[in-house]
């Protein structure tokens, strides 16, 4: 069974440009989460999808960030326009249906390291 995959693994862009990060969750996982770790800080929650619906987007820093999950499969996180403080590692995680006990176990992807110069 394939794990959570993220693309790209690294991205270096200039301030003001747009970047789109992609996450492919484990097949069949309804829950999809985005997290971010800014250098030297803790990993912080950004948002949570259940299938294609945004369940919780309380962690999204501002309206420059747009997340989508079309069809309840893969998800994209777009940053437009990027600012210097957006640099960090963006993690995606997925877990099974909320009705299952195992839904508490989140499986993480390797992350996308974003550098804004």
């Amino acid at each position: 069974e394939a794990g959570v995959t993220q693309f790209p693994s690294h991205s270096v862009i200039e301030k003001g440009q747009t970047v789109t990060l992609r996450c492919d969750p484990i097949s069949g996982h309804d829950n999809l989460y985005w997290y971010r770790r800014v250098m030297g800080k803790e990993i912080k929650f950004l948002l949570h999808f259940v299938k294609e619906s945004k369940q919780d987007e309380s962690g999204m820093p501002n309206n420059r960030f747009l997340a989508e999950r079309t069809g309840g499969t893969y998800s994209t996180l777009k940053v437009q326009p990027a600012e210097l403080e957006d640099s960090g590692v963006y993690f995606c995680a997925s877990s099974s249906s909320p009705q299952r006990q195992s839904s508490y176990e989140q499986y993480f992807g390797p992350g996308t390291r974003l550098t804004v110069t």
Partner: protein
Amino acid sequence: AQSVTQLDSQVPVFEEAPVELRCNYSSSVSVYLFWYVQYPNQGLQLLLKYLSGSTLVKGINGFEAEFNKSQTSFHLRKPSVHISDTAEYFCAVTRASRAAGNKLTFGGGTRVLVKP
């Protein structure tokens, strides 16, 4: 809201020595607790979790953790470390309510460096 404090940012330890990574949390509601590990150039991997039951939880790779509700702690231990345990370790909590979603609140991480 929950918060998690990992008291040590870095822990150097010699191979075959024991290690303990400390984690304290704060929450006004019941929580579930997790330890994740991130090996170099890899994603986060679940080491172990506490949902209910026995407060001593055993995980993968010989790690174990003990949930102490009165001290709001969930310290991670391994009696004898290997070079391959060099990694960053994260303590995390989530609200123990499926209806509230399962977003994780993480501590700042502890880097473990195992020396030969």
